[in-house]
């Protein structure tokens, strides 16, 4: 391995290249996309547990009416950190981890375009995570504003708010660098013969996602910067007395925030677009329309932001415009759903764990998408805004959508990463427990929301008690089921049946042409791209 790590310029000896470091130094200094991908994935899982533990605090407090375990302030802090950690610490890094592992292998590149910067993109995450979690322990506690950080409430917060602001800055830097890396890799490092329209869909979703990130993260950075100066330097962006407007923050935040939700969803679509064809043993249906749909979703996502702000008093014309624009997104998303369905149609289906998670994704994401459509109708949203209906909606698209898709990808590529097959029985258990408990946890929240239970409250009126108990049981069940995946991964890393280079007979793509586990450096020279491997 040491020898190969120099092949980029073999024989050309560098004064400070004392070989490939081992132990912790390997991970800290690595420029290898696989190492970095693994670090992203581990980091993301740890953050998932931390964020999940916070959600369990939330669910425990909500188990029955009355205040039981935590104070309202602490509840708000948990709620904020849960969301920030899950979104920025768990789901996004998980897909960046996939991108790091798979994109170079899928397009036949030796590594990411900027391997050293890639390492920095990862190592920026721990400082941000430290700032976020440490903020619980500073005077005044963490930000208790919800992940949306709306002023003037966020102006009132203590220094935990500043820590969250800087964490967001650092996360933003990480995302922007990571995205520039991915865009450049995809645009510039494809093996000869792989045109953009022959590129695997996962790469397409990431190309658009990276564009969304580069365009929207700086906007968020701007928003929190204004928040910071309003807090400490006497500016008045968000204060009416000075001529500003608290609602301005919401516009800027959601101009970032809505693309952000597709940043979470698109790579998930990408993974599923690989898993479903593989286990249907049939090429992906409608590749070209998939690509256009991804691009359309990415584009439209910049023009719908105020559907989060229907009750802020924006003018009627604004409400109407944003309602129509939001509805429009259902069309390209629908195209994707229909394409997946048709891919399975007349296939030769088997149901290994990746396929189960992809199917779970399909069913539950569609539910979440359809409730999103209900929310898009301004008049209905005015009833549902800031209720548990919204909470149910976004957990369907983010947990059952993005997280399930991430699991599908994990099980799908684990043999390639570790060289071992995972334990299928445990995998199936993991899926079914997740599927069942997820729905127990979140389906009743639709009813709670319809009946009028507001979100972000630590205590509630009695008529909401029953569904909250059910939801709590589901959440705990779901949470503890997730520990199974740890067992599965440890087992596969340690040993198990050896995986063939193409462990799934229906899978296509360059990544399946290399041995399992994939060698430390996959393609030192651009590989030959065979049409048969197109559109994996």
């Amino acid at each position, binding site marked *: 391995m040491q020898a190969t790590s120099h092949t980029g310029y073999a024989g050309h000896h560098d004064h400070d290249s004392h070989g490939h470091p081992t132990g912790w130094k390997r991970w800290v200094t690595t420029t290898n996309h696989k190492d970095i991908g693994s670090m992203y994935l581990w980091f993301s899982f740890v953050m998932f547990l931390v964020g999940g533990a916070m959600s369990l605090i939330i669910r425990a407090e909500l188990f029955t009416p009355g205040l039981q375990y935590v104070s309202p302030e602490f509840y708000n802090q948990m709620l904020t950190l849960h969301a920030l950690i899950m979104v920025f610490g768990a789901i996004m890094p998980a897909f960046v981890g996939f991108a790091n592992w798979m994109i170079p292998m899928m397009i036949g590149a030796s590594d990411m375009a900027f391997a050293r910067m890639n390492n920095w993109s990862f190592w920026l995450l721990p400082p941000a995570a430290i700032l976020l979690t440490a903020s619980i322990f500073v005077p005044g506690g963490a930000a208790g504003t919800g992940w949306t950080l709306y002023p003037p409430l966020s102006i009132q917060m203590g220094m935990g708010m500043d820590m969250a602001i800087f964490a967001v800055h650092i996360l933003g830097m990480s995302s922007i660098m990571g995205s520039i890396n991915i865009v450049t890799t995809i645009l510039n490092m494809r093996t000869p013969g792989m045109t953009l329209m022959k590129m695997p869909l996962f790469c397409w979703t990431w190309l658009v996602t990276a564009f969304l990130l580069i365009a929207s993260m700086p906007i968020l950075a701007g928003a929190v910067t204004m928040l910071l100066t309003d807090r400490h330097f006497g500016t008045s962006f968000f204060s009416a007395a000075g001529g500003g407007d608290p609602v301005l923050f919401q516009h800027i935040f959601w101009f970032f925030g809505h693309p952000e939700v597709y940043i979470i969803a698109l790579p998930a679509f990408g993974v599923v677009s690989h898993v479903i064809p593989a286990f249907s043993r049939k090429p992906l249906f409608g590749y070209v329309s998939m690509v256009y749909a991804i691009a359309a979703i990415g584009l439209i996502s910049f023009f719908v932001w105020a559907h989060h702000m229907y009750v802020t008093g924006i003018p009627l014309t604004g409400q109407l415009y944003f309602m129509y624009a939001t509805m429009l997104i259902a069309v390209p998303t629908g195209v994707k759903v229909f394409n997946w369905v048709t891919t399975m149609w007349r296939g030769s289906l088997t149901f290994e764990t990746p396929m189960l998670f992809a199917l779970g994704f399909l069913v539950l994401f569609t539910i979440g998408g359809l409730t999103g459509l209900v929310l898009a109708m301004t008049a209905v949203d005015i009833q549902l805004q800031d209720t548990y209906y919204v909470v149910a909606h976004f957990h369907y698209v983010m947990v059952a959508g993005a997280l399930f898709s991430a699991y599908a990808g994990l099980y799908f590529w684990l043999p390639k990463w570790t060289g071992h097959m995972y334990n299928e029985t445990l995998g199936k258990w993991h899926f079914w427990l997740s599927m069942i408990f997820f729905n127990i946890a979140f389906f009743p929240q639709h009813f709670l929301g319809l009946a009028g239970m507001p979100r972000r409250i630590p205590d509630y009126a009695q008529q909401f008690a029953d569904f909250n108990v059910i939801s709590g049981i589901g959440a705990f069940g779901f949470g503890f089921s997730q520990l199974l995946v740890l067992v599965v991964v440890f087992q596969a890393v340690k040993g198990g049946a050896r995986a063939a280079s193409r462990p799934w007979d*229906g899978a296509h793509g360059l990544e399946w042409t290399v041995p399992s586990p994939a060698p430390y450096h996959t393609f030192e020279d651009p590989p030959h791209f065979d049409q048969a491997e197109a559109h994996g």
Partner: protein
Amino acid sequence: MLTFAVGKKLERSPLGFFLVRFRERQGLAPMFCHTAGGEAGGEREKMARNSNSKGGSNRLRRGSTGLFIAGLLGLFSSVANAAWELNLQEPATAVARRVYELHTLLLWVIVVIFVGVFAVVAYSLVYHRKSKGHKAAGFHDNTTVELAWTIVPALILVAIAFPATSALVDMRDTSEPDLTVKVTGYQWKWGYEYLTGDAAGVKYMSVLSTPREQIENKAPKGEHYLLEVDRPLVVPVGKKVRILTTANDVIHNWSVPAFAVKTDAVPGFLRDTWFRAEKEGTYRGQCSELCGKDHGFMPVVVEVVSEERYAAWVGEQKQQLAAVAEDPNKVWTLDEQHALGEKVYTTNCAACHQANGEGLPPAFPALDGSAVAKGPQAAHIEMVLKGKTGTAMAAFAEQLSDTDIAAVVAYERNAWSNKLGEVIQPAEVKALRGK
């Protein structure tokens, strides 16, 4: 009906058994039959409960997936039944009814789409399996169907855009109200001020009235736990009420589900909304925008009364206004002031600084022993008048009269261990106001 069947079933299932035990232990009302929103719902509910005690399938025996399916079915049945626990609260205005119907329509649309799509999936899952020996076809493109499933959903969306638009236009039409009330959100209470109509000039605060012990599980929870206030908003039935919202500190949201009203109260701006309640009754909602620590504890209660009762209520308010009209030149004694101050403190300050004056440091400082509360009077009064920008300490100049501020400051300086024994005359506050 099925909804309740599910409820009953749940009670009998192992899970339900646990739930029922659990609820008994917590001293909560029986399962699956509580009242929300208008009191009017009680009657129908009882009927529903009776009719479902028989009947029901053993769907739930099939374990937890059954629960999910039951939940789904419950959702559908709710449309037919309008059983409010699984659906929007019973509408009490024409607008709310339109929203309700719009939601029902949408629900059917998405259910049909969902069922349609997943019927196809289910067919594939059953018949196109490898284990059944099905061989994969090789097709991967078909422009016709791809166009069809782009255009058909688009048409569906266009179709639902029409009712969605007209319902919204209705909702936003705040013109020609019979009565206008300004609603101000404070951390964490509502201020109501009648701007027009007979009650013009009436102005008061509305605070959660659920006792602390209930919240802390030291006493059984009442029927309207967390949804009750000391002084509700009172409006006449059948009149168009325009609500102007604003806030004093952070963004709040004034919301009453039965009226389909939900509008942010943004500090420094006025927003408006309206409702015309059709039936007398008490309608309950909650602040619906995270506004800090006690966001979950600032309910909205609207009392809709007949014209006569409204007139009587207005009369009462006017009388009280006249009676309370303060004599700014009255000279206060220590005891008098202490008593008034305690009252003002409890309603306005205790949420943050706590009844015992110890606050919740570091977010909310203790006043017991505080340097400000034991320091010069002027600084203390100014703190209360002007608040401190960038913190939760709001300016109380607008909310409280000179008499109240004098009283509360004096109270803080005398209570707990502060014991300065001072009396502060309203005139001293007045003198500081202008500055």
